[in-house]
């Protein structure tokens, strides 16, 4: 399947925005709903529905927040977007703001991307000069502006409620949901939080219509997806694929050889063996926020396990019991696996802890943090336990 290729292309700035101003707000929401666009950060919540909910919330103050906290190990596609076509993200945010009735947008930029801040601010300045942002945009009576806020390096702040806490100047910790941000988010006001790539799709869909968009992809996974490919490949980088692409085809594109395992979805994702390379990248089969890490036959699975579990031991916010207390046992277990000292009873206990973490952790971080361990254990049992 060929790369579709529109996300990273430049567009004529303001065209989609002008078009949006000519359509009424409800209609834009319907177009986005109809397109089937889902959040590109990984969770895959329908963007049109989010717009509708936030638009319907009764408040005079609303926020549009662009989640640029790209913290998932192995993903760097948002960085590429922000380096190459930031104005498209900002235009997507502006259209969204117009639809839901917001005057203020914030880009929550990953702390490690601080070096991008001044360039992004230049782009915002230029857009203000061209009346694409600020007061009375394009003379249409709609005002909206965007500022950049820096994260401080916590992985959990990619989770939208923790991100909002961080934006409020508090410790980044996930909050109880409901209320969801669309009804009560930043400073208690309705807030639409979406991923960088999601915002990039919006100008295209407004410009070309939902049918155009729906024609790409497979089943309920419409459109394309940017994938950050790294690891044991000849051509690492950002690939734009249409949903439904098989893992093995992507490996071929990236020049992977002697591949032993592929991590899809980063530290929170799953690790699949060769037997499963026929599987598809889509919301229905293997969803991903965009991280693909390829491991060839020289890699030891226990090392990969260790890397991911140490990551979570570092990144759990420590708020809820299962995530705070559970993770360390997995780090200890890797050590035991490496020393061939793990017992059947240990593995049973670990699965019990993992089950508990999955179903009782307060946010997605803890619910997903044993994915890598368990999928490696299931898929590479012989290597680990022999």
């Amino acid at each position, binding site marked *: 399947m060929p790369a579709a290729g529109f996300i990273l292309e430049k567009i004529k700035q303001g065209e989609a925005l002008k078009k949006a101003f000519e359509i009424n707000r409800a209609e834009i929401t319907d177009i986005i709903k109809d397109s089937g666009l889902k959040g590109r950060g990984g969770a895959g919540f329908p963007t049109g529905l989010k717009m509708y909910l936030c638009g319907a919330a009764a408040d005079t103050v609303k926020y549009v927040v662009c989640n640029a906290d790209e913290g998932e190990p192995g993903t760097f596609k948002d960085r590429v977007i922000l380096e190459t076509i930031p104005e498209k993200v900002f235009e997507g945010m502006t259209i969204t703001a117009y639809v839901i009735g917001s005057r203020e947008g914030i880009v929550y930029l990953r702390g490690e991307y601080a070096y991008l801040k001044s360039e992004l601010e230049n782009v915002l300045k230029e857009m203000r000069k061209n009346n694409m942002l600020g007061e009375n945009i394009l003379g249409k009576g709609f005002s909206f502006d965007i500022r950049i806020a820096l994260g401080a390096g916590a992985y959990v702040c990619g989770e939208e409620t923790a991100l909002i806490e961080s934006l409020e100047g508090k410790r980044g910790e996930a909050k109880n949901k409901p209320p969801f941000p669309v009804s009560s988010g930043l400073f208690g006001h309705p807030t639409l939080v979406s991923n960088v790539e999601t915002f990039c799709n919006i100008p295209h869909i407004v410009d070309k219509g939902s049918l155009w968009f729906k024609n790409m992809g497979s089943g309920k996974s419409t459109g394309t997806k940017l994938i950050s490919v790294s690891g044991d490949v000849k051509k690492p980088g950002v690939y734009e694929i249409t949903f439904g692409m098989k893992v093995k085809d992507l490996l071929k594109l990236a020049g992977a050889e002697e591949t032993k395992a592929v991590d899809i979805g980063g530290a929170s994702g799953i690790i699949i063996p060769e037997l499963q390379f026929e599987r598809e990248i889509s919301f229905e089969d293997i969803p991903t926020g965009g991280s693909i890490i390829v491991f060839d036959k020289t890699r030891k699975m226990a090392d990969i396990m260790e890397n991911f579990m140490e990551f979570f031991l570092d990144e759990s916010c420590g708020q809820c019991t299962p995530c705070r207390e559970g993770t360390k046992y997995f780090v200890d277990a890797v050590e035991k696996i490496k020393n061939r000292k793990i017992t059947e009873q240990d593995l049973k206990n670990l699965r019990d802890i993992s089950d*508990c973490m999955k179903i009782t*952790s307060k946010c997605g971080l803890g619910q997903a943090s044993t994915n890598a361990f368990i999928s490696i254990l299931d898929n590479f049992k012989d290597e680990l336990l022999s």
Partner: protein
Amino acid sequence: MDIHINGKKYKAVQGETILEVAVKNGIKIPTLCYHSDLCLAGNCRICVVDVDGAKTLQASCTAMASNGMKIWTNTPKVIKARKMNIQLLLGSHFGECYTCPRNSNCELLKLAEEHGIEELPFPKKSKRTRELEITPSLTRDPDKCIMCGRCVRTCEELQGVHAVKPIGRSNDVRIETFFGQGLMHTSCTMCGQCINRCPTGALYETSCIQPVWDALADPDKYVVVQTAPAVRAALGEEFGMEPGTRVTGKMVAALRKLGFNKIFDTQFTADLTIIEEGTEFLTRLKRTLVGKEKGLLPMTTSCSPGWVKYIEHFYPDLLTHVSTCKSPQQMFGPLAKTYFAEKEGINPSKMLTVSIMPCVAKKYEADRPEMNASGYKDVDYVLTTRELAKMMKTAGLDLKDMPVEEYDNPFGISTGAAVIFGATGGVMEAALRTVYEIVTGREVPFKNLDITPVRGMEDVKEAEITIEGVTAEYKFLEGAKVRVAVAHSLGAAKKVMDKVKSGEADYHFIEIMACPGGCLGGGGQPIPTSPEIRKARARAIYEEDESMAIRKSHDNPAIKKLYEDFLEKPNSHKAHELLHTHYLKRKRFDKVK
């Protein structure tokens, strides 16, 4: 709307949590980080329940009930997950239960027992990893902390003090003070409300039990004890009695059995406080109304050491508003070591004063360097209600079995006005009973002397009394409307003080107690605490007031004699030397070293 719990239909109201609906209908769901006084956290994941259609289990304390919801509270899946979370907590909890001050009253231990936890599937924390932090009032044991966050929420929401926060991440997360400098370098008010809400032994009072035993055993020492009003309304709870059981006489008997030389009552100096503070208030009124001086009104009370430390940190520019009267505890100390010692011919250097307080801030207060008006440390040791109960248990004394005995004279004589110091609004009510009568020669115009507008558990209460028919001396007050406010908990204090600071408030007199419910909800009181328990204790306090023969401080014969024999008159030079104090301007936190 209707929801289903374990297959049965129940009514629920919009905005109710699953837990609230369950509790209302007598369905028990185990909880840990949840506390009826605090906002919802949903951290511990013990109260999880299965909700049809939800991918994950839901924390019932935070999940809202919605129409048609089907909830299962005890499925094998739920019980297994709950049990695992308890085990995970136990795994990192330094559980040396046999030496823990909370070993008979630990919520974690109780959960473990209820869930039949006999072993842990992983090695348990067996060594200490952090040091104890010991302040004059409270001790923190971070190795026993299970990160429920109740102390943080107490300090933030209830008290508005923000002395502690979580720092670090993952299993390294811990509750810390600003830059880890320790509570004594922050705005911690030593109120100890965190202790009352801590589910484990991670927070407790810094004990004075041993030095008190030593003093009692020392034939060379003359040990007198004073008991605060609120203790008698709560001590019974430590012995399995219902909250709100009055145990005054039994407590006196127990103290006598413990070997104290004299059993005195802080209520005696509570009455004295009313005379001193009431007189000070009238002076401030006169200087303001007649002398047109500024910065004297509103006058605030000064009985609550947590409140005093709070205003020193948070409103240092308003310290002139705080009554210069020492708290009843600190009035008692110097009087015992001067007046009483002289009268009885006891060498004050051999006298030790112990107080039984519902409070842990009192420990800090007794240690304040200025509290040595007698030439000695005025109050040597402060024991909480809980510590007294422990000493009694050590000595094999069960409160239930104690006879009813009387306090010793002269500091055992008190009035109903002094009892109500233990409840929010009580100091105000006692002061009004006296001040009104001083000014008009008549009793306060409230039925049975009950000034009900200042009673009750509302966080800020306001009242107004018009003064009419004054005596010649108080002509300047004829027709004056005296406006008063009462606040309990430091969060409520903030509401009132912000208004004072902005000039919006037109109060003349404000009573502030650091703890919810007043002293009866103090940081040294039996654990647990809840709005219901505090209401029961308040009921006991007001019943005690009703039962007293004398109900106005100025009618206390022992107080009259004290002035005749020793102090001359209210606010005299001698009274100022012994019974009044000054305050310190403090910062929110010390400079980071």
